[in-house]
């Protein structure tokens, strides 16, 4: 292989203009791939992080009451009427065992019980429909990091203390330390002291969320000792769907993953990813064609030398390898330039526009694994692109090329 490598290197070095052009082509291609991947990955991670920043990966709750046929005679015109019963807050049966079972599922890193239900928040003449989230702030922080979203006061809530969304506080004119009356469906009311304000990163939630201690919510909704949902965090977010399906099956409860509840987002991410893959595929194809055409020209230019090498005993297999190596080397060396180019482009774009908080508008994710992958793709592309020219070189007839 040393001989083949030696000749391949010399061919490339002496064909300076061609080699430089094709190396530049490969570098631009690889740079594009790296930049594009980094940008798409960065954007997607940022979107996912923002989406999952305020929700659990999987929410497990009792199955809904099933629709049933009511009244009437099945023979009558129009047949039986099917209605969905109104859904009321239901408790997860024996939730401690269920939570323990869910926590034991592979891939699950945290489990927290919550009691959720609707209520009205009253203050003076102001009334707002709110969503009560009864939870243990400490335990729940393993699912969603609430602490870092507190913008005033503290997250610590016990007894009749609450943390409410910033928009809700604004609407009701509440500051930390103020009182808030909560009214639930059956007429029960309770008065809470607002201990902190939270910015969940979503206006709708900021207008509706009222966090109170788990126990208080249980009392408010008449679920003493019970919980309405169990929320789950998994270590690999894209496995949530599969884990949720398994949970449904083993517990008989309704387990919904973030991938189902954010179906549109997921479709968006997937089409973004597939268009990125398509662009990368075409770039790889263009790089391959570039390498193949340069080598094809080189084979024609060097056909006499190839014939001579055969005449002095160089086997066809060696000639084949000389040209394959050239393709691989062009791919590898070009990809090194491409990595630099991609990193440069990424850094440039990341620094171009910044959000008010100083973070980049283009969250570009540059990673070593990406460089390695791009270099490997370019090298293999180079090798494959060289197959046809190399085979042509190896099949030359020395008697003909030397004469001609």
């Amino acid at each position, binding site marked *: *292989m*040393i*001989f083949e490598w*030696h*000749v391949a290197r*010399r*061919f490339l*070095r*002496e064909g300076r203009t061609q080699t430089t052009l094709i190396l530049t082509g490969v570098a631009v291609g690889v740079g594009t791939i790296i930049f594009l991947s980094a940008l798409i990955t960065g954007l997607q991670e940022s979107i996912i992080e923002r989406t999952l920043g305020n929700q659990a990966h999987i929410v497990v709750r009792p199955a809904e009451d099933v629709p049933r046929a009511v009244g009437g005679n099945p023979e009558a015109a129009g047949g039986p009427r099917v209605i969905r019963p109104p859904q009321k807050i239901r408790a997860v049966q024996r939730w401690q065992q269920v939570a323990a079972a869910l926590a034991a599922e592979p891939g699950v890193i945290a489990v927290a019980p919550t009691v959720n239900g609707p209520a009205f928040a009253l203050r003076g003449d102001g009334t707002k429909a709110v969503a009560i989230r009864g939870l243990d702030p400490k335990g729940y922080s393993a699912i969603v990091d609430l602490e870092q979203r507190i913008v005033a006061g503290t997250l610590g809530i016990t007894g009749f203390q609450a943390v409410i969304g910033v928009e809700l506080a604004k609407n009701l004119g509440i500051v930390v330390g103020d009182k808030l009356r909560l009214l639930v469906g059956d007429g029960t009311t309770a008065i809470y002291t607002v201990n902190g304000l939270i910015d969940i990163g979503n206006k709708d939630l900021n207008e509706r969320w009222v966090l109170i201690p788990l126990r208080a919510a249980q009392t408010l909704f008449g679920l003493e000792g019970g919980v309405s949902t169990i929320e789950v965090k998994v270590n690999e977010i894209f496995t949530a769907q599969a884990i949720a399906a398994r949970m449904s099956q083993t517990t008989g409860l309704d387990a919904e993953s973030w991938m189902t509840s954010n179906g549109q987002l997921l479709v968006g991410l997937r089409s973004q990813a597939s268009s990125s893959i398509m662009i990368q595929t075409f770039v790889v194809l263009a790089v391959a064609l570039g390498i193949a055409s340069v080598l094809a020209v080189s084979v024609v230019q060097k056909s*006499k*030398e190839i*014939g*001579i*090498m*055969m*005449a*002095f*005993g*160089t*086997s*066809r*297999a*060696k000639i084949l390898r000389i040209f394959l190596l050239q393709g691989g080397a062009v791919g590898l060396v070009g990809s090194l330039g491409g990595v630099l180019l991609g990193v440069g482009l990424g850094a440039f774009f990341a620094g171009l526009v910044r959000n008010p908080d100083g973070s980049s508008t283009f969250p570009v994710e540059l990673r070593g694994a990406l460089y390695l992958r791009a270099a490997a793709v370019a090298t293999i592309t180079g090798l494959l692109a060289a197959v046809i020219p190399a085979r042509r070189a190896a099949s030359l*007839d*020395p*008697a003909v090329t*030397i*004469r001609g």
Partner: protein
Amino acid sequence: MAEALIIDGVTKSYGTEVVTLALRGIDLAVAAGEFIALTGPSGSGKSTLLNLIGLLDRPTTGRIHLDGTETGTLDAEGLARFRGRRIGFVFQFHHLLPEFTALENVMLPAFADEGRISEETRRTAVRLLEEVGLSDRADYKPSQLSGGQQQRVAIARALARSPALLLADEPTGNLDQESGDQVFRLLRRLNVERRITCVIVTHDDRLAERCDRNVHLVDGRVDFDKQVRGVG
């Protein structure tokens, strides 16, 4: 004297629909150390015959024995190896690899065969360049050498593996009188000193007169085959 080369009823035809007969039956025995001129008009088949002897091509019918080996029994790899080790080529155009220096060009055959450049390969190459009078041009690229010098490097390369047989196709055809003469005398000297069997294709009758033997082809057949000066 042992035969270095035996050509036994060799024919060569090209094409399948329109068949062209390039060689119509050649029988020839060449003694080890002989210096033969292969002459004939254009299209007489002399280059075809040289390619067959050089194992660059296979005969349509007939057999070629080189150095006691029936070459028809060798596969493609075997032919390449045999060619590399037992046959040296010199062409009308030097066909040196332009990417490599004179010394590297001379070392390439051994490098290709052995996969590395041994100390012995290097020593042999240096000595050969000395022998062809170009030791001071070892690090020059072919483009920096004159036509005669290029051809002398090509001869050094042809001798790099100590072949038993040296084949030259119009080795002086592209050179001026003086360089051509120099190249011819070099070949002759190597033939005498190293006892290498030489077969030279040439148009030049005066050159043919200076060989041991002149085989003249016309229309794919041996027209005449005569001793010219006798060995030595």
